[in-house]
C-alpha cells in the first residue's frame, strides 16, 4: 500500500489517469452558514462544508455518505447553487459556477438538477402533475406549449407513470410514485448532472429498489452523472462507482466503492462500516462503537475533525499505555469543559458564582464524577487533573483546556492531517496514521478493539 502524502491545496489530482473525463471539479470548497455579517448579529459561522476537494467524472455515480449533520446535503445544495459557496471553486466543464449569476446562472441550471429527499414536501400539492413537471420547461421557454405538454407526457412515460396522470394531483399518488414525479421534473430540462439527495430514504423498503433501478436505467439511457447522497450504506454499495465519506464538513476517505467497503483505510470509514450488521453469526469482528456525538460544526476541533471520537487516535508518547476507559473519560472531560466555555454566562450566574451560591453550572467535582465515574484514575495523571480542577474552579475553562491539551494531545489534535493516497486506484484518506511514522489505522484498531 503506497502512502504518499498529497497536499490538497497544491496537488489536487485525486485519481488515476489524467485522461479521465472529469465533469465537476470541486476545489477546497467551503460553505458556512451565518457569521458572514459583521456586527452584533454576526458570530461564528457554522462550518457545514469545510474545505472539500474532489472530482466527479462524467457518467459515474459518486456516493456521498456520512452521519446526519455532517454537511453532505449542504455540499449537494452548493453544487447546484442552492447555497452560495463561502470559498473555493466548483468547475463545471471548466466554468467556475460559483461566480455565475443572473442570466448565465439560469442557463447553467439546466445542466444540474436535484432530486429531493422527501417526496411529500418536494411537490406542490396544489398543482397537477402535468403542471409540476412542465414548470421547468415553462421557465426556460422550451418549445411551444403544445410540445411542452407532449414532452411532459413522454417524461411521465419514461419514469414509469402513465400519460393520463397529467391531470392528477400529487395527493393521489403513493410515496414512490411521487418520487417518480420529482424525478420526471428533474429530467425535464435534460440535465447532465443530478444531485440525488437521499432519494429513497423516505420510501418504503419495497419501493426503494424500484426507484433505485429506475435511477440506474435513466443513467444508462441518458448518460447522466449522479452525486448520490445517502446514509444507507448498502444502497450506496449497490449503486455507486466511487464513494466519498464525509465527517464534520470534511471528506475523510474517497475511493472506488468495492475497495472502500472491503478494505477501508480511514478509522472513520472503519467505524461507519462496522455499524452495518454482519449477516454471518459466526463472525468474530467486534463492532467499533463511537462514543459521544460529533462536535458542534460551529466549533470544529483544531486538528483532525474526527479526533474527538477517533478509535485509533494517536496518543502522546508518554501515555501510550493508559486504559481505553481513561482516554474516554479524558475526552468526555474535554468536551464538557468546551461546552462550559461556550455557554453564555448570565450576570445572575456570575454573581451567584462569586457569592458561592449554587449556579446552574456544575462544580468540578460533579464534572469529574460524570467524566470518570468509577474509572480508576492512574496516579500519574492526577496532578494534571488537579491543575485542571483549579482552573475550572476559577471559571477559567480555556486555561483548563490548555492544560489538558498540553498534557494529553497527540498529533491528531494538534494539526490537521493530510490526504494520503492509500491504494493504486488513487483512493485518498484523511488521517495522520497513514504517515509511515505511525502505525496504520488497521493495526491500531485491531490492537485496541479485537
Amino acid at each position, binding site marked *: 500500500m503506497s502512502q504518499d502524502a498529497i497536499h490538497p491545496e497544491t496537488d489536487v489530482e485525486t485519481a488515476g489517469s489524467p485522461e479521465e473525463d472529469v465533469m465537476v471539479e470541486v476545489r477546497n470548497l467551503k460553505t458556512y452558514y451565518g457569521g458572514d455579517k459583521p456586527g452584533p448579529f454576526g458570530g461564528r459561522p457554522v462550518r457545514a462544508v469545510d474545505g472539500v476537494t474532489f472530482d466527479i467524472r462524467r457518467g459515474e455515480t459518486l456516493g456521498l455518505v456520512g452521519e446526519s449533520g455532517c454537511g453532505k446535503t449542504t455540499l449537494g*445544495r452548493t453544487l*447546484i447553487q442552492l447555497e452560495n459557496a463561502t470559498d473555493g471553486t466548483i468547475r463545471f466543464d471548466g466554468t467556475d459556477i460559483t461566480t455565475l449569476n443572473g442570466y448565465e446562472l439560469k*442557463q447553467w441550471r439546466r445542466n444540474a438538477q436535484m432530486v429531493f429527499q422527501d417526496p411529500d414536501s*418536494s411537490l406542490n*400539492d396544489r398543482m397537477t402533475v402535468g403542471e409540476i413537471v412542465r414548470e421547468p420547461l415553462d421557465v*426556460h*421557454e422550451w418549445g411551444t406549449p403544445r410540445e411542452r405538454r407532449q414532452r411532459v407526457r413522454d417524461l411521465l412515460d419514461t419514469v414509469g407513470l402513465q400519460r393520463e396522470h397529467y391531470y392528477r*394531483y400529487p395527493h393521489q399518488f403513493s410515496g414512490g410514485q411521487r418520487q417518480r414525479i420529482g424525478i420526471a421534473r428533474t429530467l425535464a430540462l435534460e440535465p447532465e448532472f443530478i444531485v440525488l439527495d*437521499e432519494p429513497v430514504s423516505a420510501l418504503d423498503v419495497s419501493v426503494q429498489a424500484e426507484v433505485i433501478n429506475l435511477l440506474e436505467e435513466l443513467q444508462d439511457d441518458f448518460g447522466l452523472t449522479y452525486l448520490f447522497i445517502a446514509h444507507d450504506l448498502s444502497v450506496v454499495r449497490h449503486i455507486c462507482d466511487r464513494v466519498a465519506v464525509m465527517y464534520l464538513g470534511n471528506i475523510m476517505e474517497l475511493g472506488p466503492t468495492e475497495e472502500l467497503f472491503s478494505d477501508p483505510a480511514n478509522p472513520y470509514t472503519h467505524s461507519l462500516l462496522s455499524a452495518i450488521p454482519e449477516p454471518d453469526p459466526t463472525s468474530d469482528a467486534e463492532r467499533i462503537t463511537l462514543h459521544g456525538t460529533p462536535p458542534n460544526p460551529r466549533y470544529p476541533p483544531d486538528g483532525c475533525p474526527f479526533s474527538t471520537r477517533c478509535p485509533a487516535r494517536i496518543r502522546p508518547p508518554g501515555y501510550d499505555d493508559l486504559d481505553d476507559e481513561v482516554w474516554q473519560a479524558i475526552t468526555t472531560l474535554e468536551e464538557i469543559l468546551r461546552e462550559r466555555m461556550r455557554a453564555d454566562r448570565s450576570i445572575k450566574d456570575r454573581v451567584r458564582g462569586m457569592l458561592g451560591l449554587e449556579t446552574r453550572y456544575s462544580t468540578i467535582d460533579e464534572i469529574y464524577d460524570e467524566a470518570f465515574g468509577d474509572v480508576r484514575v492512574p496516579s500519574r495523571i492526577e496532578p494534571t487533573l488537579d491543575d485542571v480542577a483549579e482552573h475550572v474552579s476559577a471559571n477559567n475553562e480555556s486555561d483548563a483546556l490548555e492544560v489538558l491539551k498540553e498534557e494529553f494531545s497527540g498529533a491528531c489534535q494538534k494539526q490537521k492531517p493530510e490526504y494520503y493516497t492509500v491504494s493504486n486506484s488513487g483512493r485518498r484518506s484523511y488521517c495522520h496514521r497513514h504517515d509511515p511514522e505511525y502505525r496504520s489505522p488497521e493495526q491500531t484498531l485491531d490492537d485496541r478493539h479485537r
Partner: protein
Amino acid sequence: MSTNDTEDDRTLRDRVAENPRPAAVWLAGFAVLILLELGRFADGATNLGIIAELGVAAVVGTAKLIGGNVGSTVADPLGPVVFALTLVLILAGLAGIIRSLIPFSPTKTLDLDVPDARRVLVDRVLVTAALAGLTALLMLTPVGDAVDTGVAAIISGLDAASNLPTITSRELIPNQGHRLPEGGWEGTFLGLSPAVAWFIRVCVVYGYAFLLLYWFWRGYLTYRDHYREADWAPIDDTTNRLRGHPWGQAGLVIVIMFVVMAVWAPALGPVTAEENLYQPYQNEHTYLNDNGELETSAHGTLNIQTRSNGDSNVGPFSYDQYDRWAPFGTNSDGKDLFTFLMYGARTSLVIGLLATGLSAGFALALAMVTAYYRGLVDLVAVIGSDSIQSVPFILLVLLLFVVFREADHPIVSLYDGGILLALILAFTYWPALWRSIRGPSLQIAQAEWIDAAKSFGQRPSVTMRKHMAPYVVIYIIIYASLVLGTIVITTAALSFLGLGINPPTPEWGRMIAEGRSFISTKSWHVATIPGILIVFVVTGFNAFGDALRDAMDVQADVGGEGGGGGA
C-alpha cells in the same frame, strides 16, 4: 386514452364540442337570467367603462401633469416632450405585465435574431413600442376620433339597454300609489296595496339573486363533472366540507342577503333614494286626505308629520298618515328607515370591501416578499407594522381623518368621506393581517418545492405567486372575512361618534346615534333595527369565515414541512 397527440391534448373547447349538451343547457339558463336583468347589467357595464376611463385618464393625466410642470418651469417646448416621455415610461411599466400575460414571445414570433440573454428585454421594448404606437395612433390621427365614435355608440347602446325593463325594477312592480276615494289603490302593482306590492318586489329580488348564484354554482358543477380533465382537485374537498357545515351556510346566507341588499338597494326600498334621502322637497307624493280628496305635496313637507321621535311615531310594518308604506317605520326626520338602511348597506359594503381588499392584498404581497427573502426586509416590515399597531387604533383613525379634512384634500369629497375612511382603515388593518399570515408564509417558504423551483431557475415573483400564495391566501381569506365584519362595526362606531360618513350618505351607525335617545320611547325602532342588522351581518361574516377555515384547513392538505434533511 391513447397516446395520440390530439387525444392527449384537448382544449376546453374540444371537450365542450365533444359533449355540448350540459354546457348548452347551462348557457341557455344563464342567458335567460341575464336577459331578465339586462337593464341592470348594462348599467353595471357602463359603470365599469367609466372606471376604466378614469384609469386611462389617470395615466394620461399623470403624464400631462409632469409634462406641464416641467414645461412651465423649464422651457415651453420641453413640456410636450416630457409628456411623451412620461407616457412611454408608464407604458413601459405596463409592458412588463402585459408581456408576462401574452402566451408567446414577440421576439420569437417576429424571428428577430436576439441572444437569449436579452430576449426578455427586447420583448418588453417591443410591447412598449406597440403600446406607444397605439397611443399615438389614438391621440394624433383620425383613428382616435373613429374609436371615440365607436365608444360613444357602445355607450348609447348600453344606455338604451339599461332603460329596458328588468324583472326587479320598481317600474315593473310599483308600490308607490295612493288610495282611491271609492276604495282600492291607484298606481300600485295590479292595484294591490303598497305593502303587498313591495313585498312581492322584495321576494322577486331575493329570488332572482339566489337563483343567479345557484346558477353559477351549477355552472361550476357542470364544468367539474363534464369538462374538467382532473377527476379530483383539492378544491373538491373544500367544497364538500363546506357542504356539511350548516353554521357556515347560515353565515353565507346572511352574507349574501347583505350583499343583495347593497346591490339591489334601489329596487328594495319602498321609496327611491332621491325622494327619501337626497331631494325630499323636489319630489312629490299624492295621497287621499281626510276629506276624501287627492292631494299632492312634497315628501319633505309630509315627512315633518311622520317623524318617529318619541312624540309622534311611525312604527315598523305600518303606513304613515299619508299612506306611505314604511316596513321598518320612519326615522326621526320622518324619512323611510328601510330605504335608508338598504343604501346604508351599500355604503358599508363599499367601505368594507375596499378597506379589506386593499389591506389584505397589501398584507399578502408583503408576506410573500418578507417570507421569501427574510432577513432585513422582514425586520423592516416588523418594525413598520409594529409602529402602526402601537398607536391606539381609534386615535390613529381620528388623527388621519382630521388631518385630511382640515387640509381639505380632494379625497374627502369622494363618497362623503367614505373612500377616505376605507383608505384609513386599510392602512390601520394591514399590520394585523400581515402578522397573522407571516407565520404560515415563513413556513411555506421552507417547503422543498420552493428549493426545487429555485433549482431550475424560476423567478422569485413567480415562485411567490405559484408556490407560496395559494397556501397563504386561504388564511388571508379567512382573516379578511372576519376583518370585514369588524370594519362594518368600526364604520358604524365612527359614524356614531359623528366621524366618518357625512350626511346625506346613509350609514347604519349614524342612524343608531340618531335614534339612541328614543330607545325608551315608542320610537325604539330607529336605533334598534340598524343595531340588530349590524349584529346579524357581523355574525354572518364570522360564521362564514369560521366555515371557510374548517373547509380549507391547510393542515389537512399540506404534508410535512421543513427543509432538506441531512445537513
